[in-house]
């Protein structure tokens, strides 16, 4: 599967990029996050993050499909 990942705030800084295309065997956000967190050195555990697929919030075991746009959202600080 190939996914498009977008990174924001400290996750973008840590990854050194705002987006990436990733070929992976991960089929759910939980597996995908474990993979990229190890690679990029993300310190957030999943209970501190939310995940969005194609612009909508989903659960960590959501079934991903090829071409999905995925965002791991660190705690927000608007306002």
């Amino acid at each position: 599967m190939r996914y498009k990942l977008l990174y924001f705030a400290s996750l973008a800084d840590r990854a050194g990029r705002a987006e990436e295309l990733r070929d992976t065997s991960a089929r759910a956000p939980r597996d995908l996050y474990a993979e990229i967190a190890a690679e990029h050195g993300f310190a957030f555990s999943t209970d501190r993050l939310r995940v969005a697929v194609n612009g909508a919030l989903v659960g960590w075991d959501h079934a991903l499909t090829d071409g999905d746009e995925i965002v791991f959202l660190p705690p927000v600080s608007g306002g």
Partner: protein
Amino acid sequence: MKQFRLSDAAIDADAEKRSLAHPAAGGCVTFEGWVRNHNEAREVLRLDYQVYGPLAESEGEAILGEARAKFGLRAAHCVHRVGALAIGDMAVWVGVSADHRGAAFDACRWIIDEVKRRVPIWKNEHYADGESGWLHP
């Protein structure tokens, strides 16, 4: 018309307030969030807001819809700045109108709290000592 908007230009609070007018409304309550020059005992020079636009807009609209139903509002609008802001700039504006003041006060507070908790916007503060940092409360 969208009730929740992201803006890369200064917010016109007077124009926003006029958009709350409704013949059945007995009053309005508005909140302005401003960029302050300090946070957690550090001097702040300026800040940048980053946003995940599609989800910010849908989540913002959802919050305003929930507020209209929960508090029986006549109108509920919110504008949030994105990009680079200076000290004193208005970062966010929330306004509601309702038949009676109680619902208006309660709803305005509820909306800004939900926006800060749910909408995917991140603040990067630039400090006087040259450091900067994303806030992830």
